[in-house]
């Protein structure tokens, strides 16, 4: 089928401001949007710039706005867009470096701020620290995050203020706060207990809709809010 892509372009060395370029290409309905972008880059316009790596929804590098929704280009098939016109833009709320590539540093700064690693200074046991399947289940959903930023950059609160720690960082915090082997839950709750922490979330649910891993992001944020309010982790 023939499709038309309207792609956001910005070259910091040449352009004063961004513009859109249009490309008409032949695509198989089963092609991923990423395949089409690769095709355009390989054949029509080598300067078209985007991030990509694993190409099957695991590495999280090709998050972009596709027909108005934050998606991974490698997980959207052309046929599933139900349209022969596809608009591709960078994810919003982060500075555009070039074309579809944004500066992820503000995003990762927030991620790092919640101590996204297991903290436990107790003496190392001789064998592994066992965890029951039930205890593991408590935070299973938030282990699925691939840090693609689809959630954070779909959030109007984040668009409003990039000081907001954002859904992805809260998901990362949730993954450790509710891990019974971890000992820094209280500290993470303190970090998130401020106006740029969990309270910037107004349960708009864009994040949950955007997550390519189907993480219940808004629910996880709600659980962190409740833990702060009650001081309990059950």
């Amino acid at each position, binding site marked *: 089928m023939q499709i038309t892509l309207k792609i956001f372009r910005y*070259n910091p060395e*040449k352009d004063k401001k961004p513009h859109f370029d249009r490309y008409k290409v032949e695509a198989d309905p*089963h092609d*991923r949007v990423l395949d089409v972008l690769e095709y355009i880059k390989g*054949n029509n316009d080598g*300067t078209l*710039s985007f991030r990509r790596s694993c190409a099957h*929804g695991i590495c999280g590098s090709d998050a972009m706005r596709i027909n108005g929704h934050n998606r991974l280009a490698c997980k959207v*098939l052309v046929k599933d867009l139900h349209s022969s016109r596809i608009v591709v833009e960078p994810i919003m709320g982060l500075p555009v470096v070039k074309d579809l590539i944004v500066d992820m540093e503000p995003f990762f700064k927030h991620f790092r701020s919640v101590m996204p690693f297991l903290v436990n200074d107790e003496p190392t046991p001789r064998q592994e620290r066992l965890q029951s399947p039930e205890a593991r289940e408590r935070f299973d959903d938030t282990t699925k995050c691939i840090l693609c930023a689809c959630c954070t950059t779909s959030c109007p609160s984040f668009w409003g203020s990039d000081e907001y720690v954002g859904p992805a960082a809260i998901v990362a915090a949730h993954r450790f706060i509710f891990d019974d082997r971890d000992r820094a839950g209280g500290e993470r709750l303190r970090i998130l207990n401020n106006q740029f922490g969990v309270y910037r979330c107004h349960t708009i649910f864009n994040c949950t809709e955007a997550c390519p891993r189907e993480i219940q992001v808004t629910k996880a944020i709600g659980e962190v809010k409740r833990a702060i309010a009650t001081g309990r982790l059950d």
Partner: protein
Amino acid sequence: MEKYAPKVKDLASRDVTSRAMYLEMRDGLGIGGKRYLYLDMRPETVNKYAIADGRKRPDGTPYRVTGEELLNKLPDIVDFARTYLGVDPVSQPMPVQPTAHYAMGGIPTNKFGEVVIDEQNTVLPGLYSAGEVACVSVHGANRLGTNSLLDLIVFGKYAGLRAAEFANGAAFQALPPDAADFARQQLEDIRSSDGEEKAYTIGNEMKSVMFDQVGVFRTETGMQQALEKVRELKERIKHVRRPDSTKVFNTELLNIWELGNLLELAEVTTVSAISRLESRGAHAREDYPKRDDQEWLKHTLARTEDGKIRLAYKPVTITKYQPKERVY
């Protein structure tokens, strides 16, 4: 799979399964005569065979699975099938075919992650390597399921510890002024290229010939064809269309440079595979179907000298487990 691995059937290692699939498809037994097969993990199918085999769980209860368990245990596989094929593996069989999965060779290291440079395992001080890029030789000629975790978790840790130790005790050394010249020249050659070749096409041709001729099964004739093709592509990439000239996040330049490196690796892989006159692990030669420990129980080392690949070999250290024939 009974035909290929009578005891463990579908749980045979990946190389065995890939070869079985390849042979079935070559005999025209793919689905609708095409080059794919069905992987059927519907609970009714899994349970049918579990009953037939009398399979039990560790606690002695009969082994049965539910759709929900499949979703919990294989979320990514289920998601791939749904996203890319519109197939629900809980109620439909999944179309599958073998593909390249892992690079087993790599930068040779010792068990501490220190890079070694020759047959005597001489350490190159200060250089460490771990993960899929490295070859600490955990895998030999085959990477069995979850073995890559060993590469990451065990040898990644040791490489990190050793590197930290080294950095702690080493004095800062000034780099020679020409240290970046080699890489800079490589990039400059691409930037000033004046041909019409497309990296996109060269990349696809490389993938296709490597998949067909240096893939699941290999023969002298096929691999020679592949080698000629790869060498042709190495010539053609010198005449690549001049890429994006910008300095910021120039992914086109990066892709072309990376493709040049991939072609080098494709050549090393093919030359090493042609020279190894036996079948071992995932290296399956139709013209030499048997493993030959007498001649070939050794590691291949490849290096380039004046643009030509030179092969050398080093012995395999065998400790606790004696090599024996794999039977599934």
